[in-house]
């Protein structure tokens, strides 16, 4: 079985400071892992994905995530937050072999950015 746990339901940072959104996963098989973002009244947008290649994955808008198998983690980071980063972020897992199958979502982390 697969599952993801996002360790914080809400994170608040100041503009220009680093962002860390934490995610732990559980998977019986080699996982594919994703981070999606949802801005208000918008659809979910893929930020980045890990699919068993490089463990440090770079995404759009300066975000990156590192796959750590020993810690079963896939935390999302950004060196410097921007006001436009305020949104809800979802960590997602799917078994690597199950290409095209269902995505399993974490509970979401709401990111607030203060001026």
């Amino acid at each position, binding site marked *: 079985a697969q599952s993801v746990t996002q360790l914080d339901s809400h994170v608040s940072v100041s503009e220009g400071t680093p962002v860390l959104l934490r995610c732990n996963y559980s998977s019986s098989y080699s996982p594919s892992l994703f981070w999606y973002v949802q801005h208000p009244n918008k659809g979910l947008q893929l930020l980045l994905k890990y699919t068993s290649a490089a463990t440090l994955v770079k995404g759009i808008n300066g975000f990156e995530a590192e796959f750590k198998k020993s810690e079963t983690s896939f935390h999302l980071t950004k060196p410097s937050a921007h006001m436009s980063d305020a949104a809800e972020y979802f960590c997602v897992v799917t078994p690597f072999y199950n*290409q095209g199958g269902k995505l399993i979502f974490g509970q979401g982390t709401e990111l607030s950015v203060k001026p």
Partner: protein
Amino acid sequence: EAGVTQFPSHSVIEKGQTVTLRCDPISGHDNLYWYRRVMGKEIKFLLHFVKESKQDESGMPNNRFLAERTGGTYSTLKVQPAELEDSGVYFCASSQVISKGGREQYFGPGTRLTVT
């Protein structure tokens, strides 16, 4: 390229009524998915079409929900009769193979359903 579109964006209905949600995937995408987020909960998978066939409907909550994808293009999700616990945001996504490591699913903006 047009993204995934969903209609309506909002729907408010009374308990016992019927509602039909529509999803238009990205042109050429064979895979179409429905997900739902009930307030305060995580987004959960409902079902997966490959073209017009149901590949996986393990997430459908009960037989009040009926999904169709006639002709393998757009899809509808009908709730009949609606219950209060059906309230939430219904997302549609579509995908085509772009890499070996997992297909990216492109999401629509969702339909917010409120059952009163």
